[in-house]
């Protein structure tokens, strides 16, 4: 990326209020509040799902009813009334769309404000975008180009209609319905999401990206992503979120499942910028996400890269099961909390196959009165020979009213494992800021510069498009936090 572009973006960022807080006026096709078997049947019927889907949802719902919300995380969460949530809403659309001209102008204007790359230039930039507006897919670009290579990239609903065999084979295999409270809830009520299938030996020629956006008031967002990478295939998948400003707390419980076969590689990148609540901790998204991949095949690879700046509450541990011999996984994360945000986030690396390798680089940044926790598990099972892990967890504090916490868990069942853990905590010094000031750089820009320097290891792992957005977000998120 050109340096000027970086600088330009840093410079143009001047407001400290959440920038993407606007609401698009679109008619919503809601089904009313509450959750019971009838609602689930209604969701399934609205989506014209085959029977196996309804069975899956009902099984998940029945299991969910027996479960309790987990309380082990370092989070204070007000009680959530699950009967006070609308579990399905989709923007009303005219018939199938042929081109951009057919997209609802309201929606297009929203995307323009967000700078979502749906326009010609971005298509030239080789980005295919599957946009999720609330719960149902609005527009998918580049599908045909991908189809030529046998790649399937579509909304989850379409996949259920067009590729039910694949969905039935893989859905719920990495994150089973009984996995946890939020996974069960998602499995019961999820409305849409994305599906990616890369056939054997195919390198996906472009970055696949999806933008999620919560729009309807009081609507929980339950997305589900499934990525299947066959042998010797490769894909880089980008997920980015922005949400409009709202006072009500909004529940978000997504699931991501990734299956990586022999010698295949997946990069999964996220920029998460859900509305974090205002300066006084009012409002904001509750984000409970279950992301997990399995490196099923030999020498398979899965990389997670994430920049997390949003949400009032974040509960999220992208994890990898290293099952195939010689498989490897990397986790790169920057999590920013400001004002009253709370984040309990990290990863799990489960070493099962021999000579499996994992790397964890976690960078927490806390400001305001926020709490930012890293929680990570490295597990090596008894029969796993030659596992290696390196973990580095750094915390950066801005001010003295915020908290940074590290909860590393190591469960090592085999003596041949080599596991390293490093952790540091530092503060952005007044000295550093003054040094920048003295060179002519104002305090906001100085913080952006220092924080981006601190997070560089992670940002460098993001695809270029996201790296720009990520840098911008880091600075926006921390504006007004010092001085």
């Amino acid at each position, binding site marked *: 990326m050109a340096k000027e572009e970086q600088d330009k973006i840093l410079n143009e960022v001047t407001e400290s209020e959440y920038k993407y807080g606007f609401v698009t006026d679109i008619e919503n096709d809601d089904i009313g509040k509450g959750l019971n078997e009838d609602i689930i049947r209604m969701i399934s019927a609205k989506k014209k799902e085959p029977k196996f889907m309804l069975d899956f949802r009902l099984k998940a719902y029945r299991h969910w009813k027996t479960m309790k919300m987990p309380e082990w995380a370092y989070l204070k969460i007000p009680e959530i009334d699950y009967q006070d949530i609308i579990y399905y809403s989709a923007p009303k659309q005219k018939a199938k769309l042929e081109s951009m001209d057919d997209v609802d102008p309201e929606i297009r204007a929203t995307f323009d404000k967000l700078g979502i790359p749906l326009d010609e230039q971005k298509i030239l930039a080789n980005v295919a975008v599957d946009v999720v507006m609330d719960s149902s897919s609005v527009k998918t670009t580049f599908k045909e180009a991908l189809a030529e290579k046998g790649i399937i990239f579509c909304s989850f609903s379409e996949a259920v209609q067009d590729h039910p065999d694949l969905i039935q084979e893989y859905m719920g295999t990495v994150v089973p319905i009984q996995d946890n409270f939020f996974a069960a809830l998602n499995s019961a009520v999820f409305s849409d999401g994305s599906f990616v299938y890369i056939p054997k030996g195919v390198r996906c020629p472009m970055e696949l990206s999806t933008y999620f956006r919560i729009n309807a008031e009081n609507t929980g967002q339950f997305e589900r992503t499934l990525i299947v990478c066959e042998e010797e295939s490769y894909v880089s998948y980008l997920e980015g979120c922005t949400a409009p400003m709202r006072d009500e707390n909004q529940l978000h419980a997504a699931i991501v499942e990734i299956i990586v076969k022999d010698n295949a590689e997946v990069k999964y990148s996220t920029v998460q910028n859900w509305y974090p609540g205002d300066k006084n901790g009012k409002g904001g998204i509750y984000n409970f996400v279950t992301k997990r991949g399995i490196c099923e095949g030999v020498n398979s690879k899965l990389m997670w890269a994430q920049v997390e700046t949003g949400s009032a509450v974040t509960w999220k541990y992208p994890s990898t099961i290293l099952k195939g011999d010689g498989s490897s996984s990397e986790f790169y994360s920057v999590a920013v909390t400001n004002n009253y945000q709370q984040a309990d986030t990290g990863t799990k690396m489960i070493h099962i196959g021999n000579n499996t390798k994992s790397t964890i680089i976690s960078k927490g940044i806390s400001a305001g009165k926020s709490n930012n926790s890293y929680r990570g598990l490295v597990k090596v099972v008894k029969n796993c020979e030659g596992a290696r892990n390196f973990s580095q967890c750094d915390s950066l504090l801005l001010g003295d009213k915020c908290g940074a916490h590290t909860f590393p868990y190591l469960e090592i069942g085999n003596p041949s494992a080599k596991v390293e853990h490093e952790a540091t905590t530092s503060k952005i*010094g007044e000295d550093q800021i*003054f040094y920048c000031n003295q060179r*002519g750089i104002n305090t906001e820009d100085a913080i952006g510069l220092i924080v981006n*320097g601190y997070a560089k290891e992670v940002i460098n792992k993001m695809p270029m498009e996201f790296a720009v957005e990520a840098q911008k977000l880091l600075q926006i998120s921390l504006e007004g936090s010092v001085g």
Partner: protein
Amino acid sequence: MLSIKNLHVSIEGKDILKGINLDVKPGEVHAIMGPNGAGKSTLASVLAGRDLYNVTEGEVIFQGKDLLDMEPEDRAKEGIFLGFQYPIEIPGVSTVNFMKTAVNEHRKYKGLDPLSASDFLKLMREKKALVEIDSKLTNRSVNEGFSGGEKKKNEIFQMAMLEPKLAVLDETDSGLDIDALRVVANGVNKLKTRDNATIVITHYQRLLDYIVPDVVHVLYNGRIVKTAGKELALELEEKGYDWIKEENGK
């Protein structure tokens, strides 16, 4: 260029500077010497706008503007450069990116367009050659893992890049071996013009063998107690500071 009148400064209720008067004209090099704790670094910090200090009395006029009324970054852009006694490390931020941001902020302040990447790199090459700084240093993160000498050379490099009107070098010679000292001093001498001025703050006379001052001041107990030509530095070297302390009542 710079006019300090009756400057009183305190920190946490303790008076550090007790009525400083100083005039610096374009083209001049002033040395401020004095024993430890005299207030030398405080004076440098106050000029640069560090907010740890309270100015309780007096005024500082820089090129006709009230300096004390300006934010630190605006003072920098008006042309004040502080060479830090202990330059700060900024991990992960490359010197190139740091300097590019700084240079373009200065340009913006003057109503100029930002430099293109190639023009900026060209400028960097010129200035690196001028101050004889190793390219390896500028490719690394700002001051991160630099030796004491490297940090000071980096300060002089930054000064060359920003072309200040008034450079205040705070104990730039401390912790330098003789080679580093020469590089630093050469840099300062090469950057000297008829239009800019330098204030060299130092404890020892050593640096003044290389940077020849027009005026030497002795700062003691928050006041400038002696002002003379460059020969004063030699006298201090020979006799130490005790006679100053005695003259001014311990």
